[in-house]
């Protein structure tokens, strides 16, 4: 339920191309065959009363309020389960059906508390609405009969209550959990009058429930109710905005009571999520008003000094004068900055502009460096566009899906639900991942093939898949001949057919049986529509870029590009990874992925910006950190990234930070990086921002200010002030103007403006004269680069090897309830589900080491060590261990190494040789800032 009601047609739309004309209450309407009478009526704006029907669930036919009369038919069929037929004459308001509706409602109310006035859902309750609609005036049964009024309330979920006494057993929650979310955590228990909704066990918290909120959303009464609504009351205004967690980019209705956010409700018209949500976006927004948030700027001369709260003016003046003096002393190249894929496109654009125009260098990089930079590189090389090829909806047309190095049910849950829906309808699944992720086999989903390769052997695997396609005549010759560069293809074909790429040889590298590889390749290649989705398990390797190109090769060779249901689709980690990359925050590229050495492009920017720009690439993040340690790089501006926790080899990162003369951090919280900062600019949460995020499907979504900025300033305003203090003015008065400038200089964005987005909801770039409504699927007629470019993808193993001292391979990832470095989710009740990083280890490896379930273990690599609890599970194969990096106290990146992708320097988070041993105690609260680091800091 929610305040702003989107139209509910009662039953899902039919995708039939055949039309049927019917007459409803004397009016004619033509609808697709397969449409329900209820939906057809609603299309005529005739609302038939209903309780169990809602248009994101299949019709069910249980409430019996929607009965109608149909000429020539016996009885009173339910309009939700009755499909239109040619010439059908329907009457929705007859004495007979009105009587049935009223009498059915009377039965409902005879077993429902009479507490509307004190009910949290008062005014937002479909049962209440329907009682009014059918004109119920009395309950002749009385209230002393058998009932459920004394049923207990389950308060166990931290975000919502389940008040059984108010349940009308419409099964919408159960069906939402099944059909929308795909978790099947709810059921109806018992039968007949005793039927009740049940999470299958003791309570919601101990059940399989992932707290996505779909059930709460589906509930027509106050049975499943947000605790925040119970506590704060019904909201009274709505702002439509975009979630700031993962790269799915869900649209939400932020519902407020005055200035206080009461709840976030997924928006049905949101293109990415179509009304669905996950536990993070739906419920974990409390961090935005957490007391830890810093609201005033702070400065200090040295990092050993305490912070001093100052005015914005003083902080900006302090930062600017330091930057200027550093540049005059150490040179123009001695400073730089990092943009954030947590921030809006406009904020990112402003930062890179400041660096290029005011700093006068190209030392700008983005945190996408450490996640998806290989995607940008690899897809640009092969397809000509640094982005995924499809929209999320496309998966509904896929017949075979390959997931490589991604764990969508945890990291991209809303998209995972969509994918699971398709899988339940019969699409086949292939999983390439060392771990047995949930999608390999979990309720109602089972992969046809799981290829549990050894971490670090992706490229060998993708080559083997390509080898099977090339040697077993599974190539889509029509596609290759017409769409791809044939010279490049021939080179690739000759390369891929070499015996070294055969499954039999690759079996010895990956550990995956050759026959499984062959079977998976055949399945994908023979699919009508084959789609590949991948995540950081592809990119965060020393051959990340090679792997991305290998994936692109496979898709092209099998003709799986350029239509719905196919494609190569990176699942972006953070909300605006795509956008941050699009906005020109790589050191070698302007917005729209155009190299800084391109004189025409550069001149365009120089003219518009009124500044001289450098034509050589600047430094990447690891280059900057390296240079800092050497002493060449002295100051950095970091917006919205916590490199001291998120970047690999923490010790090295901290040493670099400690070596700098000036570190400026802009963030919501004093994070790990801020320990090394001299200037702290408070940042805004997504609830305060005004701008756009671009999600993994290139969808540009509006982020609207739900409330006023708690710091008094937007990030781009701070950047503009700093830039001005450095001598370069940006004359923006709104973030909309920044987007206008982006549109002016970026060919794929020329059709984008806030006004347009407000009108159409969202668009997927390219959005320009050629594609005014955006581009859901790319490379339809031809590739962006013209002909698709096959690339030779030689497998060069990582230098990180297991040794006798470090015999296990560590790989890292996320859990559902936590997010990234945990800065937000740790400050919410999401920690109820995961309150610490755990080390997953196979029972046989654990036994060998005397490691026991739930006990402390020391995890050590050649660069560092940490302590965390062990979780014994066969989800990881022997020889591989796994953990998350959500908690600074664990600081998993203390372990990860300096190795990185050869082409983009994306760190090799996914392969670290480690050893695990039992430990007597856990980590100390701040072990992360150990003595040596403090000593180091003092020396600076």
């Amino acid at each position: 339920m929610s305040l702003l009601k989107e139209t509910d047609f009662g039953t899902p739309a039919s995708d039939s191309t055949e039309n049927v004309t019917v007459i409803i209450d004397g009016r004619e309407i033509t609808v697709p065959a397969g449409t329900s009478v209820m939906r057809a009526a609603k299309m005529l704006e005739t609302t038939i009363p209903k309780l169990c029907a809602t248009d994101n669930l299949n019709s069910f036919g249980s409430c019996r309020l929607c009965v109608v009369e149909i000429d020539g038919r016996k009885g009173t069929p339910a309009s939700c389960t009755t499909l239109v037929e040619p010439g059908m004459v329907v009457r929705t308001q007859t004495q007979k059906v009105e009587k049935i509706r009223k009498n059915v409602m009377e039965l409902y109310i005879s077993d429902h508390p009479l507490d509307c006035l004190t009910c949290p859902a008062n005014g937002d309750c479909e049962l209440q609405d329907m009682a009014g609609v059918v004109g119920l005036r009395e309950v002749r049964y009385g209230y002393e009969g058998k009932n459920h009024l004394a049923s207990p309330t389950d308060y166990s979920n931290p975000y919502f209550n389940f008040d059984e006494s108010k349940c009308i057993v419409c099964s919408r929650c159960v069906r939402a959990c099944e059909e929308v979310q795909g978790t099947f955590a709810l059921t109806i228990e018992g039968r007949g009058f005793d039927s009740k909704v049940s999470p299958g066990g003791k309570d919601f918290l101990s059940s399989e429930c992932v707290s996505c909120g779909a059930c709460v959303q589906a509930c027509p009464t106050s049975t499943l109710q947000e605790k925040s609504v119970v506590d704060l009351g019904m909201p009274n205004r709505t702002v439509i905005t975009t979630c700031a967690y993962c790269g799915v980019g869900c649209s939400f209705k932020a519902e407020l009571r005055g200035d206080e956010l009461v709840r976030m409700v997924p928006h049905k018209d949101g293109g990415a999520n179509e009304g669905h949500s996950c536990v993070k976006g739906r419920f974990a927004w409390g961090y935005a008003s957490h007391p830890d948030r810093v609201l005033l700027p702070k400065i200090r001369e040295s990092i050993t000094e305490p912070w001093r709260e100052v005015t914005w003016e003083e902080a900006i003046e302090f930062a600017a004068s330091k930057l200027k003096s550093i540049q005059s002393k150490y040179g123009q190249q001695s400073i730089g900055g990092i943009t954030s894929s947590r921030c809006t496109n406009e904020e990112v654009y402003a930062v890179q502009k400041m660096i290029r125009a005011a700093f006068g260098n190209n030392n700008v990089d983005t945190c996408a460096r450490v996640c998806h930079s290989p995607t940008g590189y690899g897809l640009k090389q092969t397809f000509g566009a640094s982005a995924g090829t499809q929209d999320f909806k496309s998966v509904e047309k896929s017949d075979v899906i390959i997931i490589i190095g991604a764990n969508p049910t945890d990291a991209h849950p809303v998209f995972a639900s969509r994918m699971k829906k398709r899988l339940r309808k019969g699409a086949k699944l292939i999983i390439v991942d060392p771990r047995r992720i949930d999608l390999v086999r979990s309720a109602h989903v089972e992969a046809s093939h799981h290829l549990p390769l050894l971490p670090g052997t992706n490229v060998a695997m993708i080559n083997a898949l390509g080898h099977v396609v090339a040697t077993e005549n599974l190539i889509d010759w029509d596609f290759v001949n017409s769409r791809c560069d044939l010279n490049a293809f021939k080179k690739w074909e000759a390369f891929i057919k070499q015996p070294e790429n055969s499954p039999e040889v690759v079996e010895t590298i990956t550990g995956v049986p050759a026959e499984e590889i062959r079977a998976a390749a055949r399945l994908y290649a023979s699919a009508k529509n084959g789609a590949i989705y991948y995540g950081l398990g592809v990119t965060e390797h020393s051959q990340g870029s090679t792997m991305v190109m290998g994936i692109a090769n496979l898709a092209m060779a099998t003709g799986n590009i350029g239509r719905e249901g196919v494609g190569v689709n990176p699942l972006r980690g953070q909300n605006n990874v795509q956008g941050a990359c699009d906005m020109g925050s790589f050191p070698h590229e302007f917005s729209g992925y155009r190299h800084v050495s391109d004189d025409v492009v550069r001149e365009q920017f120089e003219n518009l910006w009124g500044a001289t720009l450098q034509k050589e690439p600047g430094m990447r993040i690891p280059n900057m950190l390296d240079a800092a340690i050497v002493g060449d790089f002295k100051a950095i501006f970091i917006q919205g990234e916590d490199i001291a926790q998120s970047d690999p080899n923490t010790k090295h990162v901290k040493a670099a930070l400690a070596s700098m003369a000036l570190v400026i951090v802009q963030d919501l919280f004093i994070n790990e990086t801020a320990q090394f900062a001299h200037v702290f600019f408070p940042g805004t949460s997504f609830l305060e921002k005004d701008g756009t995020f671009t999600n993994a499907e290139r969808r540009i979504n509006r982020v609207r200010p739900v409330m006023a900025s708690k710091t008094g300033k937007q990030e781009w305003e701070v950047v503009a002030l700093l830039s001005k203090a450095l001598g370069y003015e940006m004359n923006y008065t709104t973030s909309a103007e920044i987007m206008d400038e982006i549109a002016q200089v970026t060919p794929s964005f020329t059709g984008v403006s806030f006004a347009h987005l407000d009108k159409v909801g969202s668009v997927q770039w390219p959005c320009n004269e050629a594609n005014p409504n955006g581009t859901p699927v790319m490379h339809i007629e031809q590739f962006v680069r013209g002909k698709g470019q096959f690339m030779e993808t030689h497998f060069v193993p990582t230098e990180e090897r297991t040794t006798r001292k470090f015999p296990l391979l560590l790989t890292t990832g996320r859990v559902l309830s936590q997010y990234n470095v945990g800065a937000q989710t740790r400050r919410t009740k999401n920690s109820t589900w995961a309150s610490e990083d755990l080390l997953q280890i196979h029972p046989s490896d654990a036994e060998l080491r005397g490691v026991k379930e739930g006990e402390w273990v020391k995890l050590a690599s050649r660069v560092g060590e940490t302590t965390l609890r062990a979780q014994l599970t066969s989800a990881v194969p022997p020889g591989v261990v796994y953990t998350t990096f959500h908690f600074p106290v664990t600081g998993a990146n203390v372990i990860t190494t300096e190795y990185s992708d050869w082409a983009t320097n994306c760190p090799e988070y996914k392969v670290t040789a480690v050893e695990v041993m039992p430990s007597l105690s856990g980590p100390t609260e701040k072990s992360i800032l150990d003595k040596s680091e403090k000593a180091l800091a003092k020396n600076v």
Partner: protein
Amino acid sequence: MTSIKVFIPQDSASKSVGADQVAIEILKVAAAKNLDIEIIRNGSRGMLWLEPLVEVETKNGRVGFGPVSVSDVQSLIDQDFLNQQTHPLGIGLVDEYPWLKDQQRLTFKRVGVIDPLNIDDYQKFDGLLGLKKALKLTPEEITKLVTESGLRGRGGAGFPAGIKWNTVRVTAADQKYICANADEGDSGTFADRMLMEGDPFTLIEGMTIAAIAVGATQGFIYIRSEYPDAIDKMQTAIKIAREFGWLGESVLSSSYQFDLEVVVGAGSYVCGEETAMLESLEGKRGMVRAKPPLPAVNGLFGKPTVINNVLTLASAPIILNKGAEFYKSYGIGRSLGTQVFQIAGNVKQGGIVELAFGITLEELLNKYALGTHSARPIKAVQIGGPLGAYFPNELFDVQLDYESLLQKGGMLGHGGIVLFDDSVDMGQQARFAMEFCAVESCGKCTPCRIGSTRGVEVIDKILNNENKKENLSLLIDLCETMTDGSLCAMGGLTPLPVRSALKHFADDFGLEKEMANVTT
């Protein structure tokens, strides 16, 4: 000299009154006397008041003795029942016994006659002839023949079987199923059970014919767990049929493939409703599905599925064997062929009566039932199971076919006829109808889920003299809501017994007849 054949039923009703013990005793006593007998465990002839009915094969036919108890065995032997018919329990030649003689047994032809699991017996009595005919016809010809025979669903709904089969036949799919509905949950019905226990191959043959007709390769027989003997018999029969190539990859060496599996229910009346049965067959909660889609198009595991009652499927062999004309020469109007009536409850002579449609209730009662077991007058007869109407004496002239019963506010259902004597309290029977619905409702639709419980409460109020007039009108309203508003026949038909009780037995509710009549 060959041994004398003695038939003692292994039907569970017979066993429930000691058939096994009688068999053991006869063996024992006969052995002691050095008598050369062969005991054959047949099905029941359906004359249940005579069970255990012991039959002896003679050159003139089988002569019967019943009901035989263990204590009668010695005297039977003493009086040489193997050769003489003088024992007081003797009923003479069984086939000539009036109760049986005039029946028109088509479906039940072999039940009680043969050893249920003996394939030679089965074939000796025309078994497999229908299937063999079917193998010579095209699927289209088979469905046409079944349609022309006028065979309608014997489960209660009475839908033309041939039309249903044809829908499945013409729906393209990679897999189709035949499901026999043997979830015989109606009180007062036991014909499915008796057929499965007494002549299981007939069901197998019927299902195989259906499979050939529609292109199905797999069949399921959904049997309620309350029928352990039927489950056992069917499973064994399937195994035998498989061994002899009647089932399997090549049915009777033809190009057709068909196999069968018994699926056991787990205690749910509503699983006899076809869509709930599909859910249960899929291993899920037995929740009723909304229709459409029809199971014939989108049934078991989403595939086109024929769901027919046991007796419907068991009628196919004779229809195929003897032709549509033969079958439809029985019956009247749109109710063609024979109906297996089951006379039960408080009845003097209860059991199976298979006759052409068209007989009246009165004839059935006068000719077969012969009054109540308690010897008190009949007060009411419930026809068609717990969802069927109660008929008073003045309506006993009703003709027992689909349409006539409907006209009189009743329904034929599965052909169960339950007699009640004058000690019955029809107020309590009406209450029980609601109570049964409350116990067995799947809980999906509101009228059935809440309505049945409220129905019990409102009837209680009426019976307790609370606001009689208001509560009566509320009950009538509730019945209307359940009838018109329920998702399936469970909630939709529960008002039938309630309304009929109110209408015909107003006294038992403490109501003036006129008052009840006005409102019904």
